[in-house]
């Protein structure tokens, strides 16, 4: 009823406001979506035809050649496999560490609670900086290894506190009754807490997965000389940088596989889409969770 009233009672000024408001928001949508659709169109267009220009959001000469080139290209395929692997392993490890720490921190009677909590909070405020971390990674022998992707970022204090504030909101009686039934702390964590934490786990999983999938700098810094450990984002970044310095010819000669069928530009757009599409598939499913999770996390900090 209230809604109807708002509409019928609106004045001329209000009408103008609505029209303006809807146009601005539509414009925002167009501006946000247009670049993606443009890239998609180029990636689906014949690469010799693309050079003629004038492609907007619809391919003129439809082809899947650019995508075939991505998946036929051995380096890019390795990059894809590594990206998937680091995303899966990194997300799982991050969730295990995050939920375990969050659970122990939520237990008021845990005698290590204050120490662990302080130990974690401090990491939010200082860091050793890029070079000492680089030296540490080198000294630990993690350079040119897959583990450098998943180990250094495994525990994220911010996520731990987000999960903890979620657990804190659950009724404590559930844990007590489980205890009376003879469950030990690990069983409570596994059978009582985790199933109830699904919304926050979904949110953190999305953040972790997106972070892993999008990471490129660790490859650049630590694994640049190990072609078998390359990732999709890193390969995209390399192609991008070589194109930016006007070095397309050098890139072609460095990568003879590419030179044949498709232009570097079309290939670039196809890789871009390959890195974007998995995110597009996952995020609508978790969207309803993360808004809640985001607000919760930000209010607490």
């Amino acid at each position, binding site marked *: 009823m209230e809604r109807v009233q708002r509409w019928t009672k609106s004045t001329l*000024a*209000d009408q103008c*406001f*609505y029209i303006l*408001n809807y146009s*601005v*928001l539509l414009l*925002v*949508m167009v501006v*946000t979506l247009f*670049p*993606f659709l*443009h890239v998609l169109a180029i990636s689906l267009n014949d690469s010799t035809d693309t050079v003629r*220009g*004038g492609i*907007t959001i619809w391919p003129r000469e439809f082809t899947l050649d650019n995508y075939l080139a991505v998946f036929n290209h051995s380096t890019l395929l390795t990059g894809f496999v590594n990206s998937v692997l680091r995303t899966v392993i990194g997300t799982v490890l991050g969730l295990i560490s995050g939920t375990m*720490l969050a659970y*122990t*921190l939520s237990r*008021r*009677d*845990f*005698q*290590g609670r*204050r120490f*662990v909590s302080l130990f974690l909070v401090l*990491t939010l405020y200082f*860091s*050793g*900086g*890029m*070079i*000492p*971390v*680089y*030296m*540490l990674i080198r000294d630990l022998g993690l350079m040119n290894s897959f583990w450098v992707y998943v*180990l250094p970022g*495994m*525990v994220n204090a911010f996520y731990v506190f987000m999960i903890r504030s979620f657990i804190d909101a659950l009724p404590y009686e559930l844990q007590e009754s489980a205890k009376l039934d003879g469950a*030990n*702390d690990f069983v409570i*964590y596994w059978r009582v807490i985790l199933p109830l934490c699904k919304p926050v786990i979904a949110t953190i999983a999305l953040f972790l997965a997106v972070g892993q*999938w*999008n*990471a490129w700098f660790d490859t650049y*810094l630590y694994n640049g000389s190990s072609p078998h450990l390359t990732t999709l*984002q890193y390969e*995209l*970044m390399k192609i*991008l940088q070589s194109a*930016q*310095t006007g070095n397309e010819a050098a890139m072609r000669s460095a990568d003879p596989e590419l030179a044949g069928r498709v232009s570097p*530009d079309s290939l*670039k757009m196809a890789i871009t889409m390959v*890195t974007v599409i998995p995110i*597009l598939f996952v995020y609508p499913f978790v*969207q309803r969770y993360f*808004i809640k999770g985001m*607000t919760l996390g930000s209010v607490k900090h």
Partner: protein
Amino acid sequence: MRLRGNIEPLPPVKTPGRQTKTQKRFWKVFWRQRYLYAMSLPFVVWVFVFHYVPVWGWTMAFQNYSPGLSFFEQEWVGFQHFIDLFSDERFYRVLRNTFAMAVMGLVAGFTVPIVFALLLNEVRQELFKRTVQTVSYLPHFVSWVVVAGIVTKLLSTSDGMINEGLLALNLVDQPIPFMAKETWFWGIVTLSDLWKEMGWNSIIFLAAMSGVSPELYEAAKADGAGRFRQMWHVTLPGIRSTIIVLLILSIGNLMSIGFERQLLLGNPLVVDYAEVVELYALNYGIGLNRFSFGTAISIFNSVIAMILLFTANYLFKKYSKESVY
């Protein structure tokens, strides 16, 4: 600590007998809570290794660090690297760039999401609202590599959409080399950041807006306020505290703008405007193997960040006291 304090207040004198008793109690509880310890201590060790050990690396800034030698064999040089840093002309350019992009990002990244949230909050059709929101979050989940690729593609001189459009409309007769214009670099970084994060940053404001009491709108309406005046006099004051808290928090994070955007969007032509503190540390420290000098840069950056953080914290305390009373 707090728990134990509740049961038995701090012992005034630590007699040996007492200590063994507390110790015994500690181990008893320790054994009872062994699963909790097993679930947290491994990660504490992990945090120690990856977060605390690197801080030890700060000592490098005061040495002429040489990788082959042990800690005690290093040559100590005091503040020499800091003196070098402060006498490097490039360092000041780098600082200028960092501050400029941080402040531009703060201003744009703050006002636009608020306006966006305000506009979105006025939409009554749920479906339209949700569609706009879903679309606006999308770029947040895409990597900077992808965004940089899209931006350079759109702004390219050879077949960039923007230049093609400008040419078609006869607004220019020659493609504009956007990425080669030094002075435009800050703007390009700020705008692409805005494109990427606007929707995401508006979430928190929208959440705050949904908490504004409907009665206030009713009262405003009774007083004859239109949609725009309601927005100005009810919604905006309603989220005032959220705005201030977030503003203070972002002041604390001003220095941590990173280097990703600058590294990916930058090119040799615009380096004088693109290089930021961390990029400078990367190029000097790791690129040229000047680990000590690079660490000195990081330390300087952290000190500034800490000062900003404490200032922000002070403001935060001051402000929240005002809001309570």
